[in-house]
Each structure stands twice: as structure tokens, then as C-alpha cells.
């Protein structure tokens, strides 16, 4: 906790990732204090998921460091990983397990006491509306159901830092609403949330701070109001477009439409 107070719950210092000579993330540096919800935005291929993968130990950074509550994810991975819960972008599930089996499995990996695993599993399954499907293998689940299992698995060990990569993907409106409220509630309790998304309205409503990434570089960092003032735009969508758009969007739409219909003007 001392380390965290000194440095922040999540700290990136010059985080960099290169794939075959192409720099996916170009020296990202951030300090996210405890209890903050940090929205991490960027167009497709900007490097958001790569950042999350480096921060959670799934990818080794080419350079730089990622600290979770003061623990280096590369040098002290066990301590760092114990503190994080991750909802990944794409389904990280053993789909041939049932939801109940999967949550038990994840709980055991984090040494959650067996009785607590059973209690939490039952509670999550009930609250996320999965009780009836809890003992069916997940190959038969819809995308939203799998997402609910992933969210439950990220929370089962009561992590102090959450990495959420498109957590609302596939969720119905009610569950999405519940999750947004849950994120706020968890942050109020002191948990730190790193929230990657393309859904700007949600980020605008939920996050305390917004970081915009483009071509692997941070191009904006501040709260929504600050970003609007900085870019003199009225909405986060306009801010995002100004900072990351490759060109005239209406021209792009026209070109695509012509290509689809074959009606070239």
C-alpha cells in the first residue's frame, strides 16, 4: 500500500510494444490513483488492447514498466496479478466447462476459500441471471451470457484493480446498466478501474478521467470537461473524432456507400 500511495494504483512508465518492427504502443506513461475510473479510448488498432495485455502480464513489454499497486508486472508478477481482475476483449473462457465450474476454477487459482467460492459463485450467477444455465457447458451460451461469466470471474477474488476491455460487449441494456452502476460503486469503495471502450457515451458518463490513444500514443488526457475545453468541442464524440479521425468522415461514408451500391459518381 505504501508503494501504491507513492506511485498510484496503476502506473505505466514509457510502456512500449513492437511487433515485427511495427510499434503498436509508443511509450505510454500514465499514473492512475486509487479509486479512479480511467477511460482508455482510441480507434481500432490504436493499441488499447495491447496496453491492457502488457499491464496484465499477457504480453511482455518491449520497453517500459507497468506497476500495479507498486508491483512490477514483469518482475513481481504474482503480487501484481493477485491484485487485478480482467475482463478481456475476446472471450477468455473454457467453453466446455459450465459457468459454475469455470467460476470455481478461477476462484481456486486465486486461493479464494472454498465456501466463499461457492457463495460468490451462486450469488454472481443469480445476480447476472445465469442460475438456470449455470450447469450447462458454455458452448451453448450467447455472447452476452459469456460476457457475464467473464465479469463474474474478474470479480470473484475481490481485486483492487480492474482492467475492463469492452466490458459491455454483448450485454443487454439492463445488464449494461447494472454493470455501469457496479463500476461506479466499486470505484467509490476504492477500487481502480481501467476501462477500454469504443462506446463514448458510457465513458463520458462513467469515467473520472479519459485518456485517448491514437497510433500507439497518448493524444489527450484529462476529464471530459477538460478535453472539451482543450479541443473546443461540445461532446466527447466530437473530441474523439477531432483527435483521431484520419480525414473527412462524411467523405469516407460517401465513398463506402458508393462502393457498396456500385453507384460511383
Amino acid at each position, binding site marked *: 500500500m505504501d508503494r501504491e500511495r507513492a506511485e498510484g494504483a496503476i502506473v505505466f512508465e514509457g510502456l512500449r*510494444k*513492437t*511487433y*515485427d518492427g511495427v510499434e503498436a504502443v509508443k511509450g505510454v506513461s500514465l499514473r492512475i490513483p486509487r479509486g479512479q475510473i480511467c477511460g482508455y479510448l482510441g480507434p481500432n488498432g490504436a493499441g488499447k488492447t495491447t496496453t491492457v*495485455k*502488457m499491464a*496484465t*502480464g*499477457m*504480453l*511482455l*513489454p*518491449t*520497453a*517500459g514498466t507497468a506497476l500495479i499497486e507498486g508491483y512490477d*508486472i*514483469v*518482475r*513481481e*508478477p*504474482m*503480487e501484481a*496479478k*493477485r491484485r*487485478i481482475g*480482467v475482463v*478481456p476483449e*475476446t*472471450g*477468455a*473462457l*473454457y*467453453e*466446455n*466447462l459450465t459457468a459454475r*465450474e469455470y467460476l470455481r*476454477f*478461477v476462484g*481456486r*487459482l*486465486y*486461493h479464494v476459500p472454498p465456501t466463499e467460492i461457492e457463495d460468490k459463485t451462486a450469488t454472481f450467477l443469480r445476480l447476472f441471471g445465469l442460475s438456470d444455465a449455470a450447469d450447462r*457447458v458454455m*458452448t451453448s451460451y450467447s455472447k452476452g451470457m459469456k460476457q457475464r461469466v467473464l465479469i463474474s470471474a474478474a470479480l470473484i477474488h475481490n481485486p483492487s484493480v480492474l*482492467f475492463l476491455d469492452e466490458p459491455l460487449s454483448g450485454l443487454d441494456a439492463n445488464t449494461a446498466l447494472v454493470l455501469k452502476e457496479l463500476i461506479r460503486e466499486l470505484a467509490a469503495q476504492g477500487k481502480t478501474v481501467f476501462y477500454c471502450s469504443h462506446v463514448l457515451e458510457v465513458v463520458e458518463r462513467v469515467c473520472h478521467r479519459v485518456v485517448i490513444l491514437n497510433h500507439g500514443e497518448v493524444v489527450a488526457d484529462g476529464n471530459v470537461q477538460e478535453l472539451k475545453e482543450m479541443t473546443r468541442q461540445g461532446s466527447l464524440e466530437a473530441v474523439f473524432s477531432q483527435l483521431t479521425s484520419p480525414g473527412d468522415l462524411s467523405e469516407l461514408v460517401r465513398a463506402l456507400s458508393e462502393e457498396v451500391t456500385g453507384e460511383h459518381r
Partner: protein
Amino acid sequence: MKAGETGGGGERSAGGRVPSAGGLPTRENRLDWTQLCALLSVGIRLDLRRSRAGYGRRRVPPFVLALVLYVVMGSFLSLAIITTRDPFVVSLFTISAAMFMTALSVVMDYAVVVVSPEDYDVIAMRPVSSRTYFWARMANLFFYVGAMAGALAGPAAIVGGRMLPGGAAFGVSFFALALLGCLAAASVVVFVYAAAIRTVSYRRLTTAMTYVHVGATLALTLGYVFLPQLIGGNMRALAVERGAWMYWAPPAWFAGAASYVSGAGLPGDGLLALIAFVASVLVFGVAARTISLDYSRRIGEVATQAPESAADSGAARGAWDRLRGYGIAFCRTEAERAGFELMQASMARDRKLRSRVYPAFGLPIAAYVYGVLTGAFRTPDAAPRDLDVFTILGLYCVFVSFFFTSATAASDQWKASWVFHAAPLPRRSDLMTGARALVLSRYVLPFFALLFVMLVFVMPLAAAVSYWALVFLASLFAFALLSFAAPHFPLSQPVERTGRAGQLGLIAMFGALVAVLMAARRAIAVMPAAAAVVLPALAAAAIVAELALRSRLERRLAGRDFDG
């Protein structure tokens, strides 16, 4: 698979290494039993359930089918006891077959047995040490190999326990040592690969990996087929001359140990038992101290490597590449061409797919090398027998066709096959026809062309033509037969780590067909004019099977739903 402590990127930061304390467990790399048990129980559960995903939803998992096949094979092996009552010989015969089968199945299934791809997404972000993950995978492998070995050795242990000197003591010790031998053989394969990845940069190794698989298959097969030569006796009659060769043949160590522990062995068997013990301790000791430490990271590199670019894979369209894609000229519809190009691109760029398919080539090449080294090809008609090198080579050639048919149906990206159902195709089976055209034109036919040249060099021309035609036509027949029996869209099946074991068992059981094939060879050897009947008959069978396949494939595939 997990990237482990250090993640799994292709590159490393300067401080990226986890302190290993000279191979001793540290806080960061200690073995966590709770996690190990959780990983193991889930691994086994997944093995047993795996086949229920994807198309078809078979009721019996392939693992169970494989075990049944291995029990049948083991029962055949136990027949050795009728021929000889020497515990050492019976043990040698059975354990060498079991060790060969298990090591071969690990080589062929390496990409899924050892490098379990789906683990990365699930476990890499969780606090599981490399050592824990390594031993969880090994324990899972031991379960898988142990069950196979048990199925193979079980019948001989039961029969031997009742009929051989030493009685129940022999049965129990034989069974335990057969298991240990198979576990050690499987472990050595894993450790050799893991050590190779530690020594050579993965980036460099990965290009050669598919060929390493071919080499491993070749080495294993050669070792196995050379065993009778080493023994110097007559394996067909199960007469074995004990000698110095025993110290060079690992199955003999375990066979000697079984014989010694049962109390029915000779004095020299004690030394073999000691060697078996020391070898096992060494194998597992090296793994425990060294390989397990950064196993996860190395495996993570496999999981997170960037896809092979078109330039890397040689898929850039050059004249040579167009020449190799000549088979597309035989595709009649757009869907056939689509199936052809899909398979062509996948084989060119998907290393995992290649590494699952290419090992099949190691088997016939090993049989060929064996035939050359023993001079068997010089007198092809001397004394045709059912289990001579010609039979083995023929079996392995047929195996290549089988292997390609089944292996190219599976892919990590099998869920992308939804598009086969969504697209408005007049005949969905054309996709499979196109993919088969690629496999046939790019791999099977060139392989047989090469084989023909290889045979011409070592055999009289007429004998080479006759034998080659026999094997080639039988392979084409088998190629159509398997597609007909188990039709799948290309790359539409989940990769199942237990599936290949079943295939190996199936191939071993395939002896009946091979016996027919070799009866034809014998007929040609005795009366060359018989070739005028046998070869056209086989060609007709292959053509009829292919035509029947084309006409019925659509109906058979129509019942297959996408379940992704």
C-alpha cells in the same frame, strides 16, 4: 496457455527475466498445489468433453474411443505371451510398442498437448507461476499418456500375470514399468522441444518447427523399426538374444526392470532396472529444475507470436507459387476455388496447422530409410511377407492421405466456418472438394512423385512401378474413403488434443486393409501378370470412391449445423 510471470511477447525487455535462483523455487516460481490441482482437473474435464463442441456433437469423446482402440491393440500385443513365456521378451515387445505409440502421439499432437493454445487467454493474466503451469500441463499429459499406456499394457499385464513366471508380481511390475516407460518417453519429447525453444530463439525455431516434427517422427519410427535389427534375433518369432544392445534401447531398460522386479528376470536385468530408474530420475529432475522455470514464457511466445506475413510464408504470388497451385485448374466452381485458396493460404501461413500435418511424412520416410539401410529394396520379390518393410512403408503412405484428410478439417479458427453456412452456395460440398484438391495436388501427389523417384533409385524399375502404383492407388482409395466416412468442411473442427491418439489407434487397427493390400503385392510377386488385374481393380475402387464421394457429400454435409 499462459505467458506466465513475464508475459509472452516475442521480444524481451532487458529486465524481463524472472529471477530463478539457480533453478530453486522462489516466491515467484514456486509450485502451487491448489492451482495445480485446479488446472489439472479442468484439463482432464476439457479432454473428456472437448468433442462436444463444434459440428456433429459426437456422443463418445475421441479420448474414450482412442482408449478402446488401444485396449484392442494391447490385446493383440498380449498374444505374444502365447509365442513365448519369457517375461523379458513379452515386456520388450509390449513396452517398445507402447513407448513408440505414446511418443509418436505426443510429437504429432505437440501443438495441442503441450502447447495448449486456449490456456493463454484464460490463464496468462492470473497469478500462476511457470513451474505450476508446467507441471499442470505435464500432469495432464501424464493422465493422457498414462491412460493410453495403461490401455496398451493392461491386457498383457493381466494375461502375463496369470501365465508367466512371476505371476501377479510380474503383471503388476510390468504394468507399472510400462506406464513409467511411456511417461518417460512422452516427457523426453516434451523436454527436447522445451529445451530447443530455450536454446534457439523461438522466432528462428518456429520456421523450422514443422520440419522438426517430421524429423522427430522419422527418428522415433526409425528407432522403433530398427529395434528388431538391434536385437539380432527374430522378433517375428519373439526370439531375443540378450546382449549389449539392451543398454542402448530404452524399452529394454523398462522391460528388464519389469522382468527383474517380478523376480523372474536374469541377473543382467537388475542393471537394466537401475538404468531405467536413473534415466527416469534424470528426465524428471532436469524438468523440475530447469525447464519448468520459464516454460510459460516460452510457451507464451508461441501463443502471442505475430501471424506469419505473406512475404514470410512465401505466399506472395510468384511464378513458383502459381506453379505449386496448379491444382486450382481442376476446380470447376467458384466455391471449389474458394475452398482451394482457403486451404492454400492456411497451409502457407498457419504454422500450427502445418505442424499438425507435416509429421505424417516422417513415417514413410523412416520406413524408406530403413529399407535402404537394410537392403530390403534390392530384392523386392524375394520373400513377400505381411510385416516386411514394404508393408510398413505402404501403411505409412496410406497414413499420409488419412492424416491430411483429418488434420486439415481442424483449425483454431474453426468458428470462422460460419461463413460456409451463411454464403448462398449452390453446393456447400464444393468447399471441401476444393480443399481436397489442394491437399491432393500440393501435398499427396508431389509426395508420391518423390516416393516414385526414391523407389526407382533403390529397386528394379518394374518392381518399383508395380509397388508404387499399388501403394499410390491404395492411398487415393483411402483418401476418398475417409472423406466419405467422416466428411467435414475444411478447417471447421475444433482442434482436439485427444483426437490424434484415436487416429493413430485407428491406423494401427487399419492392418486388415493393409493385409489385403499386401496380399495383392504377394500375388503380383508370385505372378507378375496379376498386376494387370490388381492395379486396375484398385484404380477402379479409388475412382468409384471418389465419384461416390462427390455425389453424396452434399447430402452428408447438409445435416451438419454450425454450432459456434
